[in-house]
């Protein structure tokens, strides 16, 4: 069965200890504990499953804390729009929020933006030459939005694409990080995101060692960017391992 065990993907011990020492110094300014009891460099437990919808070529369901996302992949299919012959396939991404996904009803934030960001994040990973003249549709639906939506959508979409048998160079995993003064807080919830000073999101292919998407908001020093990137890349690698083990379970559990 493809239900992954509840795992936290936290950075290695040495890094954590070093950062904790740094934290203690800056703790004089703000001393706050995260609402769900995590420390600053701990991500939410990830639960991932493939095969969520039966009618799609591939699908995946992800639950990171309270954020719940379902992604289905259709295709490759004939492009219904009359298109010129193209050597490479086309990718069509669509992210939508259900009306009950946020606490205030009907507030689907940043839909259009997320759709194009999802596409850019995945384009670098999918081998488009393998399906010329056809289109792959990726539909993401956020059932519950509780922070870190876009990175979770990206990771879940990678899983769905692998489930659908679309050829990729590597699985894309993504993680976002918030900055509060001097503190770097990874995988923020929506309350934390609402009052962050700056944010950073990375979508990364660990084995290929390539970043497919990188966004940054707020004012950052280069040193802080380096530190944040290190944290995020490490978390991405661990998340990628979780994605892999989910897919491996599928392969091994298959009855021929």
């Amino acid at each position, binding site marked *: 069965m493809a239900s992954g065990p509840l795992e936290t993907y936290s950075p290695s011990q040495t890094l954590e200890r070093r950062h904790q020492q740094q934290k203690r110094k800056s703790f004089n300014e703000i001393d706050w504990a995260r609402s769900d009891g995590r420390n600053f460099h701990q991500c939410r437990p990830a639960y991932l499953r493939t095969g969520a*919808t*039966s*009618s*799609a070529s591939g*699908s995946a369901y992800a639950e990171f804390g*309270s954020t719940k996302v*379902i*992604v*289905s992949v*259709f295709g490759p*299919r004939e492009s219904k729009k009359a298109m010129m012959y193209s050597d490479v396939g086309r990718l069509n991404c*669509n992210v*939508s929020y*259900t*009306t*009950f996904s946020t*606490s205030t*009803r009907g507030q689907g934030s940043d839909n259009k933006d997320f759709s194009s960001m999802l596409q850019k994040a995945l384009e670098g990973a999918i081998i488009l030459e393998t399906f010329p003249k056809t289109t792959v*549709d990726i*539909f993401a*639906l956020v*059932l*519950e939005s509780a922070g870190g939506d876009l990175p979770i959508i990206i990771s879940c979409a990678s899983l769905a694409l692998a489930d659908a048998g679309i050829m990729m160079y590597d699985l894309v995993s993504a993680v976002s990080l918030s900055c509060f003064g001097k503190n770097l807080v990874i995988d923020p919830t929506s309350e934390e995101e609402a009052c962050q000073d700056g944010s950073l999101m990375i979508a990364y292919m660990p084995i290929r060692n390539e970043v497919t998407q990188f966004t940054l908001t707020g004012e950052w020093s280069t040193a802080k960017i380096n530190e944040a990137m290190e944290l995020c890349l490490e978390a991405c690698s661990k998340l990628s391992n979780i994605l892999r083990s989910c897919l491996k379970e599928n392969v091994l559990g298959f009855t021929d």
Partner: protein
Amino acid sequence: MVGLSAGEKQFMHGGIAQDLRSDGRQRLQFRPISIQTGVIPQANGSARVTLGTTVVIASIKAELGKPAPLRPDKGKVVIFIDCSPTAGPMFEGRGGEELSSELSVGLQRCLLGGKSGAGAGIDLSSLVLAEGKICWDLYIDGLVISSDGNLLDALAAAIKVALSNTGIPKVSVIVEASAEDQLEVNVSDEEFLQFDTSGVPVIVTLTKVGRHYIADATSEEESQMSSAVSVSVNRHGRVCGLTKRGGAGLDPSVMLDMISVAKHASENLIAVLDSEIAAAEAAEDDGS
């Protein structure tokens, strides 16, 4: 929806005439129904209903609001249906809009009763807290995850089950002498009032194919329909709403016949839903 060839159409019509549909069901039998409650934890009530391969989710959120000026003693209910592209690429963008609004209107007609509020499946006056000032606004959202026909019946069943799962927080109104807009309320986190769903009707859609009617059509069967009638029936056998869909005209006697057939078919559906709801509640009590 894929089209069907002439040969397949004839085969399907023949099957329906002989009371043996493509999956072995009789004309008035429903596909296996399974329900799950509490699938959306942040909503006041939610349910997921699987009818064969059609999967829908209903979620109910209650928020405090002001009653409409024309009806100060009633709460408000808003029903909104969304067909998600996860069900299929045909629902992407504007593709699902027409269907979604048709379903929303159909459900509103069946659940909300007449303009005066009489005969509504949900008793709107029970939603009022302080007449003319504060009431509960119920937002009922339906989401279609997988579509294989008979969406209206599935959504109505999901709403009924979600209502049975809904807990409205108990609110005590702190009486204000100056009775203007701002009233203070104390919303309790602990106590919840359960909804009484015995009055909530179910919808049975009868699809006319050839000379016979079938209940719970799959999308293939729906593509062959000449017309369909969706009848909402409550536990006491009273009709609570009716919508005719589809283009072909129907003889009035045929319509009356369809209404009585729908009433008959709804008894079974109500019984199945009630037993599923009871089982889900029992499981909840055991687990919690």
